[in-house]
């Protein structure tokens, strides 16, 4: 009933909560492929700590104006230099990490929860509901994701809530498609038939027997989806449709600095580098989890 192949007999596990657990994963945290996961987690930990400890680390606040120190190159006083208003780029980059990380995580979590729920229901019920879902997916996939998001954000008016809504309207589809396929793969397996034949309620069958067996794929997908969510949010903000000033955000900072890109490169360079570092951390975690999932099931 539990996820097999993790190297421990099922009876030793606490009852009722099958799935990936840290103790089950730890033996896999060895070898060259695992370095990726550990390195990613380490990088992410540093980024998160930096973001949380921003007030301690930064000597300036991200919004303090200082016209006397505008457009200064990186120095000991301003590690990443200052922008045209004399705001400290280092402080702005570090504070941006807060909002960007929260956006990336909440976008992915929403898509994951909605998509997985819809996928499980559609895959389980099948028939009419399933074919309606597949049509919806086909049509939604016909539009470039970014185009849909830009349109919805633009029509609702720029802002964080619009961005969040626009992405949520579309992104669950990828999860629903993935989970639906997984559900259809296992729904006629013997243990599912057994669970169904017993007197369990549908909720219990789905939640306890089906879900743990289909959840790994969307989880792995979600970890690599973080990269896309991060880049998407930054792109939309770069276009002036996401986070509005004065809240610092990486994409918006790059846009602000783009007029100075010729001589004052540091305005746009550092927030971009921060995006890349964060994205690499997410990618490494995603790759690591994907490897573990492959070997765990194989």
């Amino acid at each position, binding site marked *: 009933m539990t996820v097999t192949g993790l190297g421990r007999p099922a009876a030793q596990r606490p009852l009722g909560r099958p799935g990936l657990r840290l103790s089950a994963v730890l033996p896999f945290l060895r070898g060259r492929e695992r370095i990726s996961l550990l390195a990613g987690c380490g990088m992410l930990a540093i980024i998160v700590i930096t973001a949380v400890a921003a007030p301690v680390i930064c000597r300036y606040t991200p919004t303090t104006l200082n016209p006397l120190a505008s457009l200064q190159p990186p120095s000991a006083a301003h590690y990443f230099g200052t922008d045209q208003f004399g705001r400290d780029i280092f402080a702005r980059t570090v504070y941006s990490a807060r909002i960007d990380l929260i956006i990336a995580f909440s976008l992915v979590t929403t898509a994951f929860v909605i998509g997985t729920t819809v996928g499980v229901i559609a895959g389980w019920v099948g028939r009419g509901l399933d074919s309606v879902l597949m049509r919806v997916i*086909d049509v939604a996939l016909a539009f470039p994701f970014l185009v849909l998001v830009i349109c919805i954000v633009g029509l609702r008016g720029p802002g964080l809530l619009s961005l969040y809504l626009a992405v949520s309207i579309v992104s669950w589809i990828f999860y629903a498609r993935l989970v639906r396929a997984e559900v259809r793969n296992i729904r006629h397996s013997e243990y599912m038939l057994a669970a169904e034949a017993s007197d369990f309620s549908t909720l219990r069958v789905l939640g306890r027997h089906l879900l743990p067996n289909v959840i790994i794929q969307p989880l792995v997908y979600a970890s690599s989806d973080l990269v896309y969510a991060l880049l998407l949010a930054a*792109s939309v903000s770069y276009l002036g449709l996401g986070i509005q000033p004065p809240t610092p955000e990486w*994409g918006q900072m790059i846009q602000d600095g783009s007029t100075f890109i010729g001589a004052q490169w540091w305005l746009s360079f550092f927030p*971009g580098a921060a995006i890349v570092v964060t994205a*690499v951390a997410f*990618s490494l975690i995603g790759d690591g989890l994907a490897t573990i999932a492959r070997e765990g099931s194989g």
Partner: protein
Amino acid sequence: MLFGITLVTFAMVHLVPGDPARALAGQRATPQILASIRHQLGIDRPLLQQYWHFVVDIGHGQLGYSFLLHQPTDTLLAARLPTTLFLVGYGVMIAVVLGVPLAMISATHKEGWLDHSIKGSLVVGLGLPSFWIGLLLIAFLALRLKWFPVGGAGSGFPDELWHLFLPALTLALSFLAVLVRSLRASLIDVLDADYVSLAVLKGITRRRVYVRHVLRNALIPAVTIVGLNLSYLLGASVVVESVFSVDGIGNTLVNAVLSRDYQLVQGIALVFGVLVLMITLAVDITQAALSPRNELA
């Protein structure tokens, strides 16, 4: 499918809250002015009737009128669509030219240091924001070295090729990681295939095996990967066009959205949807044509 696309574009513009009339007339417009604009736009009619008009207009090749640029949307898009298509095609070409050799090296040196360094750079490549890369390219190659123009699309084929090189390179770089990753995986499959072993056993030189047997079979997955990601590439082209202020439909979309030109937004969204649909079909056909199995038939 086409019906679905028209429905989504229509629903997007009409069901998303926000009053187009208010956006056009500004905050201080009187109710009379708002009502007359609504009437002019036809948005005071019932939704179903509006949808019907929308579809009938499409049937006549009309996509509405752009208030921002004072032109019918269809003529506007007809003039700007080729630039976008050219940019995406150019970008794909650069990505394939860079990506196929990289994937070949990576797959033939599987788990060697070359493979690992390529894989390592791909992880970084996956996280590169296209607008940032574009800006850095502008800063370095266009402003400092003055090798390329800063923006615009140019006119005439050689000029376009030169003007759009940086945008196309940016697009290619944002796609390269995805391409090389998937291509490497399928190349490794091909290298493990029996017919490759047979070719090696027959004593055919390594180079010949790679070019004749492996590369040819790897092109099919390459086309598939490009096809699967065209929707993504078109999306990325929106940002890239905006960075380089190239007058394609992507940049037009951003401007239309920023100035709330609803009919233009609707028209462009529709064009993007139809475009992806057509390209998907074209990829299916190309794939069938490239498959060596079809030579027998």
